[in-house]
């Protein structure tokens, strides 16, 4: 904490010292933009050109040509003894910085810049470019600095004594170290975050922080120093690429944050365009057109910020708190862009102190981005937690409702069972009474015949009750399900024999099929499905029953593998298909066939409850199978598949 405070005080003091120093000791700085770089490279400094004075910072933005800076030292009255000075020029990424110092009527040229090894030709202890000029021996001397760079011209020129230089370089190094340390730490955090979360935002954060770290280390010359395999000139080119990558990373991050909340399609299209233009910018750098690439980059970052605000406004499903966070992020990004542009083109004097101009600026270390992401993630997690709780509550409610419904259904089932039970007693009484009467009237066939409807009615009611209780038992029954090995075709033949017209059934049965099943359920299925077919088949038409194994070839292979016994496991499923023709005017409702109590309009006059096929479906599902039905040329086909 003490160190940080000291650094802050030192930095403030430095600005004060350099500014005052230039004013009081007769040192002045001025610049001149030479639009004809060819001339500048062949001539000696343009001493007669029209120079414009400036103090420390020359924020010129994108300029075509070469910048000349003139440093004039003059002896003034009352000044202390002349001493040597150091001219310090930055930032580091200025590609060519050449010092012209005149002595003995000759120009001495010292070449520095990002394209040259750090520290070459100068006494700077940091990433800036320096030249020492001896103490003033005459009343006046002039030094020229030629600066060539494809990037933005934001030139920082300081004229310091050696003592001041040590102090300033130290402060600069401390600032740079702090920024790189923060960026490295955040990169580590981003990496861990991406590994643990594996979400779009986590990946985007990693991409952003990587690009920030790279741009910070590349533009300050650290990468070139750490990895001297490439020439400093090549590293300078890489540094331009990292600046574009940082723009892309920010656009990608914001897009990843907005996408889950359904932004407008125009926003997504715009962000796609930004990403592709960013790729083009990197390609331009690769073909040695960094100036154009960085101009494009500036437009992209501005566009990305504006689009982001539009994107936030267009969000369809974002809750209010998330919208606030994202809007704050968009505004923050736009503000940062404004400050950067302001610093680049010297647009606003009033915001001078907040301008983003230095690679050692803490604002560029990714800290703001990280804090913003933290804010977003915390808000999002809080929202998700509330959502999860609401969902859990909803599920709990649904579960309670389901339990209640199940309980009500069971109650209904019990009521039906009880009713059926209670009806059977009087039904039995009626049957015994009718039987007794019939025995009395045995000698009177006419009167005896009158009893027939009573017996018939008793039988019908009994069948209906059995239907209801069977359906109930299948739906809510908790009886154990004893199974035995049952041959399907035997049971089908037995079921066929129960019908009055067994000859109407045409069978294509694989007689070898046996399974360990509940015989009663299978009988119920067969009886109901066949009775349904007979009821709705056109008069005298056939009902076709087929029984086969699905995947029979595999089953056959197993039989061959185990010729003396049954294969260890039956994998093929059994398919039972019952089909019957229906009259063209009878349009079966295939979708409603298995619905309980559904009855086709043509059969409502006949006794029945519409439970038969529903019982078939329930029993099939209880046996682990499934049922399907379809219509083919006036033929209804019902297919039951058993495992």
């Amino acid at each position, binding site marked *: 904490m003490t160190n940080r405070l000291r650094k802050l005080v030192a930095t403030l003091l430095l600005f004060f010292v350099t500014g005052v120093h230039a004013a009081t000791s007769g040192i002045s700085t001025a610049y001149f933009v030479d639009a004809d770089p060819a001339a500048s490279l062949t001539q000696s400094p343009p001493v007669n050109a029209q120079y414009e004075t400036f103090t420390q910072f020359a924020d010129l933005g994108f300029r075509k040509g070469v910048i000349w800076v003139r440093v004039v030292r003059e002896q003034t009255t009352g000044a202390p003894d002349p001493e040597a000075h150091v001219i310090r020029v930055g930032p580091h990424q200025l590609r060519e910085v050449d010092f012209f110092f005149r002595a003995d009527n000759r120009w001495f040229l010292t070449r520095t810049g990002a394209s040259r090894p750090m520290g070459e030709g100068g006494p700077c202890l940091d990433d800036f470019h320096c030249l020492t000029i001896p103490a003033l021996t005459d009343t006046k001397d002039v030094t020229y600095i030629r600066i060539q760079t494809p990037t933005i011209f934001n030139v920082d020129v300081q004229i310091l004594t050696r003592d001041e230089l040590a102090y300033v370089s130290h402060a600069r190094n401390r600032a740079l170290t702090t920024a790189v340390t923060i960026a490295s730490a955040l990169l580590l955090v981003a990496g861990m975050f991406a590994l643990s979360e594996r979400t779009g935002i986590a990946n985007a954060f990693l991409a952003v922080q990587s690009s920030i770290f790279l741009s910070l280390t590349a533009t300050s010359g650290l990468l070139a120093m750490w990895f001297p395999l490439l020439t400093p000139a090549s590293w300078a080119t890489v540094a331009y690429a990292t600046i574009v990558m940082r723009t892309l990373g920010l656009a990608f991050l914001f897009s990843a944050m907005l996408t889950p909340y359904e932004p407008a399609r125009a926003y997504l299209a715009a962000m796609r365009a930004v990403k592709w233009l960013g790729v083009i910018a990197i390609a331009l750098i690769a073909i040695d057109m960094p100036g154009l690439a960085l101009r494009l980059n500036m437009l992209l970052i501005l566009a990305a910020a504006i689009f982001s605000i539009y994107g936030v406004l267009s969000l369809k499903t974002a809750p209010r708190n998330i919208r606030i966070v994202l809007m704050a992020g968009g505004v923050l990004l736009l503000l940062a862009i404004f400050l950067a542009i302001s610093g680049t083109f010297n647009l606003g004097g009033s915001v001078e102190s907040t301008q983003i101009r230095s690679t050692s600026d803490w604002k560029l270390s990714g800290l703001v981005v990280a804090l913003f992401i933290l804010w977003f993630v915390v808000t999002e997690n809080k929202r998700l937690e509330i959502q999860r709780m609401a969902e859990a509550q909803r599920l709990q409610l649904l579960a309670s409702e389901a339990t209640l419904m199940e309980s009500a259904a069971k109650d209904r089932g019990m009521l039906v069972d009880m009713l*059926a*039970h*209670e009806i*059977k*007693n*009087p*039904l*039995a*009484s*009626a*049957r*015994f*009474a009718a*039987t*007794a009467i019939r*025995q009395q009237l045995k000698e009177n*066939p006419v009167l005896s015949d009158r009893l*027939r*409807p009573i*017996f*018939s*009615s*008793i*039988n*019908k009611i*009994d*069948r209906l009750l*059995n239907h209801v*209780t069977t359906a109930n*038992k299948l739906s809510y*029954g908790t*009886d*154990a399900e*004893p199974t035995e090995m049952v041959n399907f075709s*035997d049971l089908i033949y*037995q079921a066929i*024999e*129960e019908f*009055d017209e067994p000859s109407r059934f045409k069978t294509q049965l694989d007689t070898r099929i046996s399974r360990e099943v509940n015989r*009663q359920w299978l009988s119920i299925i067969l009886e109901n499905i066949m009775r349904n077919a007979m009821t709705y088949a056109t008069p005298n038409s056939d009902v076709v029953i087929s029984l086969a194994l699905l995947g029979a070839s595999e089953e056959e292979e197993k039989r061959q593998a185990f010729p003396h016994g049954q294969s260890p496991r039956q994998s093929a499923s059994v398919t039972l298909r019952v089909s019957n023709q229906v009259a063209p005017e009878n349009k079966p409702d295939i979708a409603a066939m298995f619905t309980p109590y559904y009855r086709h309009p043509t059969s409502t006059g*006949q*006794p029945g409850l519409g439970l038969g096929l529903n019982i078939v479906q329930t029993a099939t599902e209880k046996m682990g199978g499934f049922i399907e039905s379809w219509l083919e040329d006036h033929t209804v086909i019902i297919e039951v598949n058993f495992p």
Partner: protein
Amino acid sequence: MNDSDNQWAVSSTAAPEVALVEDDPQLREGICLHLNHNGFKVSAVNSASALNDLLTRQSFTLYVLDVNLPGENGISIATRLRKAQPKAGIVIMTARTGLTDKVAAYKQGGADFYLTKPVMPDELVLVLQGLANRIGHKNIENSWLLRLRERSLQTPDGAEKLRLTSKEKSLLMALAQAKDNTLSSGDLCDMFSDNDGNGAPMSKHALEELITRLRRKFKLLTTGNYDGAVQSVWGVGYQLCIPVVLED
């Protein structure tokens, strides 16, 4: 087949005594009337405690018990009776159709038969006759075994078994119960009236088909020649010419 073979049904001069426990008064009366009419002597009560009183005065070998009774239920009564009279014939007659109820009646109660309401009166008679025969050791050794639940008919030596349809089973039961094991075609057609329609009796042609199918099944048996098991009686109907006892 000789005449004595045809006399396998209840022929004892002493009417078998049946204790009936049924809480529904109308049904109780109906069952009493029917069983009395078919040669049984029935004592009917409405609860377990009334049965206990009855048993202090009189002993029975046949019991027909309802399950749902006030106080002690039918299964519990059957359990007690089975312990006290291991050879007694016990028929559970209930509206309950659940498997657990049936298992409880057979395993726990030791019932011989489990009939579900509304029971067919003739079936009840036949079941009780079968039990009476079993208790009296009458002609059981050479009898065919008609298993009601399984719907099968087993040869006397137990070597072969015929699978029956429900109509075939009912036909055999009806013939076995009838006097001289003979029933007219008309009675048989009435018995198989159309349950789903207007109660019209089965056609004679359909009855003939049913008999033919049943005879065809007898022909399939390899342990003996049973072609004459069901014979046509000219001008009357059909006669069962083999002794049959029932089993649940």
